[in-house]
């Protein structure tokens, strides 16, 4: 069943996209800005896991924890260094300053690990499983299950906890939230940590899924994440989840049935069409002026 294989591959790719897109969407919801170094956070998550497994001989669990801790701190550092003091300068200033951070991080990692792709150590047991003619492997299951678990946890945090409710309140209206006694500056810091952790986990998953990582991988996946939040609707968490999976499936199918070089054109073409036809996104509602 080649078709079923493609569906699994598409879901696997889509899951990593979703995790990246969720980070963008959380940050956009709060600050109405695009965090252009978000893809680099993903890249660093991947490298942290690689260092822990390959050089410190840790296992995958430790690698994941390490990636989470480092990316959370990195997210807060990026916020403090390039966003906190430029926020008021309109749309463009945080865009440019986070691109600055992205360039710095890409360069540092290119110097440390060369610009080439390096192999990501495989620690998961690779085993094919057959269920009634359908076959899939343990790596695919691990990635899809873990991603959905992370998405579920995030959904619960946003819906059920005080921090999550505060994040949503600040997204809806910063001033009102402040008047209601929410420490907006803390919520922003927490959101950056949360969004960065999602990207960090995605980075580790990309390493596991595609067996290699490279310093510029953040740009490629980061741009896809941007396309996904446009397709799903900016600031819309559920929209990001659905459109991430949609784009993952679409790309895998276009590679399988059309040509590998067109997959980016499909994603970005869809995004441009959505912007023209329905600028609020597939899952968005008209609430603000675009």
């Amino acid at each position: 069943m080649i078709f079923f294989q493609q569906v699994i591959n598409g879901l696997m790719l889509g899951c990593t996209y979703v995790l990246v897109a969720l980070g963008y969407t959380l940050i956009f919801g709060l600050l109405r800005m695009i965090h252009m170094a978000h893809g680099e956070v993903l890249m660093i998550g991947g490298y942290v896991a690689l260092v822990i497994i390959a050089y410190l001989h840790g296992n995958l669990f430790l690698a994941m924890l390490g990636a989470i801790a480092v990316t959370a701190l990195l997210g807060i550092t990026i916020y403090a260094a390039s966003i906190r003091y430029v926020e008021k300068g309109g749309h463009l200033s945080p865009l440019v300053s986070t691109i600055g951070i992205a360039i710095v991080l890409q360069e540092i990692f290119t110097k440390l690990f060369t610009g080439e792709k390096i192999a990501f150590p495989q620690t998961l047991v690779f085993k094919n499983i057959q269920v009634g003619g359908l076959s899939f492997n343990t790596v695919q299951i691990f990635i899809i299950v873990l991603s959905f678990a992370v998405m579920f946890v995030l959904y619960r945090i946003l819906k059920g906890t005080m921090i999550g409710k505060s994040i949503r309140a600040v997204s809806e209206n910063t001033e009102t939230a402040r008047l209601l006694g929410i420490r907006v500056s803390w919520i922003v810091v927490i959101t950056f940590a949360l969004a960065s952790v999602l990207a960090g986990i995605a980075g580790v998953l990309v390493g596991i899924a595609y067996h290699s990582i490279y310093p510029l991988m953040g740009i490629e996946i980061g741009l896809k994440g941007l396309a996904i939040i446009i397709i799903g609707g900016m600031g819309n968490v559920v929209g990001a989840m659905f459109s991430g999976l949609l784009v993952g499936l679409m790309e895998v199918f276009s590679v399988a049935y059309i040509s590998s070089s067109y997959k980016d054109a499909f994603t970005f073409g869809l995004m441009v069409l959505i912007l023209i036809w329905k600028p609020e996104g597939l899952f968005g509602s008209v609430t603000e002026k675009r």
Partner: protein
Amino acid sequence: MISPYTESILIFIGINTILAYSFYIPMTTNQISGGQGAFMGIGAYFSAAMTVNYHIPFPVALVVSGLMAGGVGVLVGFPALRIRGLYLVIMTLGFAEVVRVFFLTSEYFGAAYGFSKIQELTTMTNVAVVLGLIIFVVYRLERSYLGRALEAIKENDLAAETLGVNITKLKVLMFGFGAMVAGLGGALYAHYALFIDSNNFGFHRSIEMVIFAIFGGVTSIWGPPVGAAILTLFPEVLRFIQEWRMVFYGLLMILMMTFRPQGLVTKHMFKDVLSRRGRQEVGDPA
């Protein structure tokens, strides 16, 4: 005479200034484009195809490819009317990726191997002529009736519309003009680099153009040349730390946005300095 090294730096400053203007021009109506690299690519590829495959004289190829990029710009400008701010940045970014994939897969333009065997036809003279014309047109435009309409759109487009400014026409016009300028820059670039491939016109190139303009300042016509000149010279001056120059470049962008987000040159800067008037007094009717 100047050395070939100096000449190449001057040509690159010229081309980069043209590219910075291509971002500055739509910006005069508050349209932020993150995809000017695409228009540059259109100008570069089509001019190269014209001079290499059809032996069309360079000036003709230059003008035609600029007009083509401008035409595509108008087509993109119409849907872009509905979208503003960050959404427009992302839309143009996405459009640029689609264009890049087009050149990457188009056999006629060499696909992944790129387009080579381009003649060296770009000289300091023709860069200076193109740049001079662009500055002249923008300068005259900003001081005309249209220029005041543009300023009104930049301040508040709804208010401008109620005052009878045709914002649709002006926004599309300026977007197309910006695209044309990017196309001209691309054509000059192609005939100096002699080899182009789709990666020359990707995300990095678009962002570079944004940075040149923003660094110099987008409120004054003299911002783009200042930004492009400093940022083109910067890596040359920093040769002694060549290894880490990109890191410095990134840090510079962060510092700039933190301490002077309006760019190096602002609209009334020269006037203020010349008349020794304080910042608060500008615009004071008394």
